């Protein structure tokens, strides 16, 4: 298992490298640069100022040299400094990532629990009104983009009903408390979770339906097991194996989705940091974020594979 994990990481390194090159080129193909974003065009000595600042940031160097510098710093363990604030990028990511993980974590928890639960009910009561209702809910959920859902949630639950705050992570000017934090977290987490819930629900339903008529399920009933034991230990235990892969793939989708949701809800995670960095052409921050996302994808795949092997003895013993 350890050799396998190490091998997987080594294979991923060149892929990550290629991704950084592509993103670096894309970031530089965008019109304008960090300096133009910070200096007002009304300034009398605009041209000189821009030139000076570009020189300071190394933006006047050829592209390959800029990339080389970035890569050199990376090998020394530094992600560089933000063009806009001068803050070390590594530091920026470290302070913001807990917020993103909190958002992702709760979304994942909601969507997995709800998705598996509803999917199982939907399959066990196939073709019942309940199943049709859940199917409708599922297709609606899959069809609504999460940013739109986020805005609907803000409109209904924050603006009209006033049950939850519209944005932010804590109420400004108050001391940090978990209840306040969770109240802020609920709407963005829900917006992010609902699409995933629908996806997990549909996959669980299909998977349970496949297992439900297996001979070993009949064996379990013939042994006199209760419906609960039959459902949980014999049906779900088998049906969830393929769902693990779907959840794994969606970890990365969740990470990507958090960019939009964080921006809509002003959630101070790295997704919002990334959007701001793009607006300000802050390429060290953009590159830092991309590196982190590549790492997240790699980690998600690895975790999926390892979980899979624990869930299925046939793979574990190979």
């Amino acid at each position, binding site marked *: 298992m350890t050799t396998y994990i190490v091998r997987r990481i080594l294979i991923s390194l060149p892929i990550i490298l290629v991704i950084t090159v592509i993103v670096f080129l894309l970031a530089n193909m965008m019109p304008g640069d960090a300096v133009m974003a910070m200096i007002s065009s009304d300034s009398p000595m605009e041209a000189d100022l821009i030139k000076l600042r570009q020189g300071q940031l190394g933006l006047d160097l050829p592209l390959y040299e800029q990339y080389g510098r970035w890569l050199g710093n990376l090998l020394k363990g530094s992600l560089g400094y933000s063009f806009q604030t001068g803050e070390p990028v590594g530091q920026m990511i470290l302070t913001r990532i807990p917020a993103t993980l909190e958002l992702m974590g709760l979304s994942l928890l909601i969507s997995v629990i709800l998705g598996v639960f509803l999917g199982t009910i939907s399959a066990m009561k196939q073709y019942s009104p309940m199943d049709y209702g859940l199917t409708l809910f599922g297709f609606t959920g899959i069809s609504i983009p999460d940013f739109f859902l986020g805005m609907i949630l803000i409109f209904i639950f924050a603006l009209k009903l006033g049950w939850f705050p519209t944005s932010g992570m804590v109420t400004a000017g108050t001391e940090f408390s978990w209840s306040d934090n969770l109240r802020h977290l609920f709407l963005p987490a829900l917006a992010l979770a609902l699409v995933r819930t629908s996806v997990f629900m549909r996959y669980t339903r299909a998977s349970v339906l496949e297992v439900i008529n297996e001979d070993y399920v009949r064996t379990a009933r013939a*042994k006199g097991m209760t419906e609960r034991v039959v459902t949980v230990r014999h049906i779900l235990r088998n049906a969830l194996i393929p769902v693990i892969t779907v959840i794994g793939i969606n970890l990365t989708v969740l990470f990507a989705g958090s960019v939009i949701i964080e921006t809509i809800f002003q959630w101070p995670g790295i997704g919002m940091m990334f959007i701001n960095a793009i607006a300000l052409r802050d390429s060290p921050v953009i590159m830092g974020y991309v590196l982190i996302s590549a790492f997240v994808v790699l980690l998600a795949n690895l975790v999926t594979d390892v979980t899979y092997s624990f869930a*299925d003895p046939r793979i574990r013993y190979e």
Partner: protein
Amino acid sequence: MTHLLEVKDLVTRFYSDGATIHAVNGISYTLDEGESLAIVGESGSGKSVGVMSIMGLIRFPPGRVEGGEVLFKGRDLLKLSPDEMRAVRGGEISMVFQDPMTSLNPVLSVGQQLMEPLRAHLGLDKAAARARAAELLSLVGLPNAAERLKDYPFQFSGGQRQRIMIAMALTCNPSLLIADEPTTALDVTIQAQIVELVKELQERLNTAIIWISHNLALVAGMVDKVIVMYSGYIIEQAPVDDLYEQPAHPYTMGLLHAIPSLDQRNQERLASIEGMPPDLRKAATACPFAPRCPYVIDRCLQEVPPLRAVGPNHTSACWRAEELRKIHNFGEEL
């Protein structure tokens, strides 16, 4: 004397795509303690559905037991609550299925699966259940039983898995064991081993057995009596020797003719029964075998022949049973 099992007028139907499938149409039979019975018939004759109905394993939708009684030790199983029925299933009546490759849960260890009924029905604690599980595995002839409890089904061969299924069926010393074509999916040599094993265990534990098969030759040597089913009806029932020597239904005769024998010449084709199995979507208004029967008379096409006595303990659902028994004395032919 009360019987261990008494099935009376059992009717089971399936509903799919607006059609009604008449799977089992009022079958009745009895089984005494320690007795063994074979139910034979072709695919779709209702033999499996019949025993699944006894076990309460027909699920609605699509299927439902719609009539009759299943008296087991005097209690009607069809009237039991789900909880009471669960105690019977795997406790007093247990079942071995056709395909051992798919009948075991692939992600649970064999030990876990064997221990489940021990803990549920007998209330054993983990250690006791494990000890008993190992004991059962050695009983069915698996070597290194104690160590193999932690292994998963895919680590066993087909024959071994069927032995595990049998061990699982025997966990609670059932009074009735139902074997639903347990050897069909196995090699011929393994088949013989499994048959031997079941016979030996039956004698040792004095369990009554219902052995379901489409293979008349296979069951000949191991049961006391035979029921032949066709199109959801019992068409003949007799003590095993009587059935083989003097069958009283054209269908049974056809089945006996279809058994290949060793002295058959190479050029000779295997005997078969002409025609197609009946359409179960229509309720029978005539003898269901009439379209394929070489001895058909007008009466066969007008009424469903009832099952009636044609000899001691021998019943047949054929209008011409007596004539046929005189024509065909298999005892002399064989």
